[in-house]
């Protein structure tokens, strides 16, 4: 079968699989977050942390819970790395330096999983399993909790309560992430992904030189790495490494895991607001943009600049031969369209247009279909802006799902949207003004600019994928990128929770023929247009000097 043919078959299998689980998983997640019952293991957890699971919180308390939990997580993760020398399974890998420890702690707690270290040489298994893997679960659960709180803002009326943040985090982790991750860790092992607690195996290469091939508990982290849209590999080559992603089946399973929760969450949303078509409309927007970007990246990779480059096989530079162009494009599109950031090839080697596509995916604010939870709340924020503008055009104070969009809603939605572009633009601008930056770049000219832009887009969007080529171990990059991850994660979260509180306190306006319909092709076009427009207007000047200049050269 030709490469392209295989690509289409894989794409078909992926879409069918997603379609099959969409309803059951989406409805199951809705039940998880609306059920009154607590599992036994959950009750034990609540007792340990002294939380009354039946009490509900205002948005401020909810937000304080998210921030407090994340702060403690950062501290614990930082300490684990700083104390690695005394932890078991460290294989002599010593303490990590403060800059790397800070950057990594922030990176995993914010669901970014930007990695400025080489895991198999610096991280022992204890930090990996007790630190990084745990954060892979709970950072995704935090995203889910925030998204659910926002949905409750739409569902509820005349209340200041959004739910219980501890219950939402625990349920997301215990009832959704753990079972699916466990199941797929087994599946991945069955397909050849490695699972080992040893340091590695020593082999003598054909050249007679001794090599140590690192081993790690890969499968257990691999499944949640994708499922929780985390993306931090336990091995440096990430999903391009044959121990993480040995063949096209595991490749497909990993892409499926990346997309399954963000996609199904739109169903959860539709079910919770009592109108499933509302969820379908959001899914359609995500799907259209995802498909459009996939087409762009796939085409760009299959048609690298000039016939000579094509003949020379330039499209395969930085790609694994076992995946080929289509599977790499599919993976790259899915990992940048969600906040995953796992890679099965080198994004730095993507063509000007293809790399620009991956970059643009992130600059959409991660809504195609976005990270676990973050994708849903981000697209809802965009929907609020779109409905506000369009709502004016039908001659009513704009309302979405029965809630009026006034001053407070627009302010909070604006802050949520504004955070990422601010960080990317200021960050890239400042980085390019630094004298040392040119030396840190792997390329000069337009591609070098793309590398800087990509680094700040990846961290500010909590994606974590690396364009590579850029050396980010300097204190300047470790700290600025760390700050970008923190602000890029928590400013939108606080704004979204404030928005949720404001929505929940409103009464519900009944729908009429004069209300702007928020389902159907018209709304889908409008929302997709708004996402495209905001991203385009904000980033076209910067992109013109990076990927666009590269592509038009």
């Amino acid at each position, binding site marked *: 079968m030709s490469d392209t043919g295989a690509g289409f078959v894989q794409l078909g299998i992926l879409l069918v699989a997603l379609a099959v689980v969409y309803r059951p998983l989406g409805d199951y997640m809705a039940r998880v977050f609306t059920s009154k019952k607590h599992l036994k293991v959950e009750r034990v957890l609540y007792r340990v942390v002294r939380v009354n699971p039946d009490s509900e919180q205002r948005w401020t308390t909810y937000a304080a819970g998210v921030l407090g939990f994340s702060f403690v997580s950062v501290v614990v993760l930082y300490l684990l790395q700083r104390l690695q020398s005394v932890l078991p399974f460290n294989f002599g890998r010593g303490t990590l330096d403060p800059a790397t420890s800070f950057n990594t702690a922030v990176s995993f707690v914010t669901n970014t999983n930007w990695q400025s270290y080489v895991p198999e040489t610096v991280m022992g298994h204890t930090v990996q399993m007790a630190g990084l893997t745990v954060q892979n679960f709970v950072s995704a659960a935090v995203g889910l909790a925030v998204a659910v709180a926002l949905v409750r803002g739409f569902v509820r009326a005349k209340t200041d309560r959004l739910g219980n943040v501890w219950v939402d985090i625990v349920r997301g982790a215990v009832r959704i992430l753990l079972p699916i991750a466990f199941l797929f860790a087994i599946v991945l092992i069955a397909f050849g992904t490695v699972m080992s607690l040893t340091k590695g195996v020593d082999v003598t290469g054909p050249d007679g030189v001794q090599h140590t091939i690192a081993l790690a508990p890969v499968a257990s982290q691999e499944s949640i790495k994708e499922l929780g849209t985390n993306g931090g590999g336990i091995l440096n080559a990430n999903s391009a490494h044959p121990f993480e992603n040995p063949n096209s089946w595991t490749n497909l399973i990993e892409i499926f895991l990346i997309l399954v929760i963000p996609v199904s969450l739109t169903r959860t949303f539709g079910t919770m607001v009592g109108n499933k078509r509302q969820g379908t409309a959001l899914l359609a927007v995500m799907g259209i943009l995802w498909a459009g970007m996939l087409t762009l990246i796939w085409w760009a990779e299959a048609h690298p600049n000039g016939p000579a480059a094509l003949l020379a096989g330039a499209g395969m530079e930085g790609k694994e031969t076992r995946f080929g162009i289509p599977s790499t494009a599919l993976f790259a599109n899915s990992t940048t369209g969600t906040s995953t950031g796992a890679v099965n090839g080198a994004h730095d080697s993507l063509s000007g247009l293809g790399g620009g596509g991956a970059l643009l995916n992130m600059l959409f604010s991660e809504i195609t279909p976005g990270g676990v939870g973050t994708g849903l709340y981000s697209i809802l924020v965009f929907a609020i802006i779109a409905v506000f503008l369009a709502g004016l*055009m*039908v*001659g009513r104070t704009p309302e979405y799902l029965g809630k009026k969009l006034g001053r407070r809603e627009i302010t909070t939605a604006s802050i949520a949207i504004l955070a990422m572009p601010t960080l990317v*633009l200021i960050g890239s601008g400042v980085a390019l003004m630094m004298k040392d930056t040119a030396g840190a770049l792997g390329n000069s*000219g337009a591609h070098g600019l793309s590398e800087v832009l990509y680094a700040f887009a990846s961290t500010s969007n909590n994606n974590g994928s690396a364009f590579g080529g850029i050396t980010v171990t300097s204190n300047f990059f470790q700290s600025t990128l760390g700050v970008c991850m923190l602000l890029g994660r928590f400013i939108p979260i606080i704004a979204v929770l404030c928005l949720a509180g404001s929505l929940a306190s409103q009464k519900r306006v009944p729908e009429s023929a004069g209300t702007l319909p928020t389902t159907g092709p018209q709304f889908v076009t409008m929302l997709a247009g708004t996402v495209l427009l905001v991203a385009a207007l*904000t980033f076209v*000047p910067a992109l013109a*000097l990076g990927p*666009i200049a590269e592509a038009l050269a």
Partner: protein
Amino acid sequence: MTATTTKDTQRTSESPEQHAEHAGRSVSAGVFNPKQLWSSLPDALRKLNPRHQLKNPVMFVVWVGSVLVTVFAISDASVFSIATALWLWFTVLFANLAEAVAEGRGKAQAESLRRTKKETVARRLGANGLEERVPGIDLKIGDLVVVEAGEVIPGDGDVVEGIATVDESAITGESAPVIRESGGDRSAVTGGTTVLSDRIVVKITTKPGESFVDRMIALVEGASRQKTPNEIALTILLSVLTIIFLLAVVALQPMADYSGKQQSVIVLTALLVCLIPTTIGALLSAIGIAGMDRLVQRNVLAMSGRAVEAAGDVDTLLLDKTGTITFGNRRATEFVPVGSSTVDDLAAAARLSSLADGTPEGRSIVELCVERHGLAVEAGANELAGEFVPFTAQTRMSGIDLNGRQVRKGAASSVRAWVVEHGGVVPDEVNTVVDGISQDGGTPLVVAELSEGVASVRGVIRLSDVVKPGMRERFDELRAMGIKTVMITGDNPLTAKAIAEEAGVDDFLAEAKPEDKMALIRKEQEGGKLVAMTGDGTNDAPALAQADVGVAMNTGTSAAKEAGNMVDLDSNPTKLIEIVEIGKQLLITRGALTTFSIANDLAKYFAILPAMFVAIYPGLGKLNIMHLHSPNTAILSAVIFNALVIVALIPLALRGVRYRPSSAKALLRRNLLIYGLGGVIVPFAGIWLIDLVIRLIPGIG
């Protein structure tokens, strides 16, 4: 101070009938005269003051940019830099102009109102019953003043004694005098209006300086104008867009520097100004002022911009049946003969009995005879001899005695008794017909005749409420807009139902008492709906205050006018529908121009970005799809287009986007197509055309 001609600003005064005829037409456009642009220029220049600009974040950024570019243009003068600086200033100026023109129209109106505020001398009644002459401004609330024919009423108040005709044209523009009398719902008088006949005693209800005319002046001048909630939300969104573009442009400099060519401040500022939503930023306040003004042109005074906005959101309209849905009086619509009588016999008898009957019902009977049966309007010579028997509360009949023939018409029971009294027999058929008419919601009038000693019933006249023409279509439109109409009437449920069905309203409230109205409003509001209503009586006041949009009739009591958030000077309740449309039009205009403004940016990117960077990356020249002459002409063309589009859209901002009642979906499709897609295409053409012209300027480069 503006030289706006009064012709432009004279309020069109339409009688209620004219309004009814206009039912179904779209909201008409306000007047705009290009001369206003010129006459408002001094005001616009005055607004260049930075303190004024601070109120509008978008235009403030342009103002700062203009200053910056001017400084750089002076230090490094070239045709390009000076032209760019000039056009940036024009951008600010045009925005000011839009606001000044909108305000100018209100000012002219205030001027004409002020003229009515003459110094008056009031004849105050002392405690001893003696009159004393005091200046009008010394009146206090509760003072009693006497006003006689030819005198100007010194202040707002209620008539407590007497009845008079009053010329209210100074306020309403309506020249026909109106009747004001003590008690009832026509007791309110407005200071500055003139009594034409008789003598009334007025109890003053407002302090001087806070009178209706004072408030009106403040409103139309925009002195008390505050940003409405939606305007604030939109301003926030526009500010956020401005911040994003500011960041994008600021971050561009280090990127350009890294790429090999720093950009000049002039070019970066030009890019920024072109990208931020200047079009809507410049026109936003003009749109709000013009929205209020459109109401004023229809003789409606909104006490706040918030009320106008709320009008666009209304979900439920409460409409009084009488005067709004039906004509004020019942009319004869059918003759039903009984017994041996023919329709012509009945018509002849009915006409005879009504010839001298001056009541509206009586006149409508004669009209029906003329229309359907070809009888004469005027009484013939022999008929004039007849003696009219007027209606009294005791007999509950009226009629005529002519040449020994007696004709009577009246309520069924009274006429039946009269026939029996004169030895006649009332057939059962009469009861059947009378009951039938009652059940259909009509009022039966039985006609009987006593001639040659025999009394007999001729037949029954059906009096019905006649629904104003075009109402059904209007209600259909409202339904399409998602607005529910509820008819309020004192009639019994049966009658109410019949009329509700005929008029096509969605619901009705029969035998309505003021507290029922209130309960209905509360119930609707509980469900999250916005309610609009009209009212004039004092007992309407609580409901007017409770409703989200309460339109008080100018003829109503001062309590009603105080409680509502709008006053209709024409006292035409049908206008509520127009008010809703104006409210919607206001929001649509804002949304449409915002969309247009943002959609414009695409073309500007295609003009400016290749111009800035083609020197660094020649490949970016492919983005110059408009084939603009040179980088300088490309940038300047975009700046000029950006400024000119503001002027081009001033008429639209003042007039409002055309609005036809239809569903949200259809409206959105239309507006997205025109202002979204149009907003993408128009600037490509505009910038290309401007470039064709300015490339001819020598030295532009």
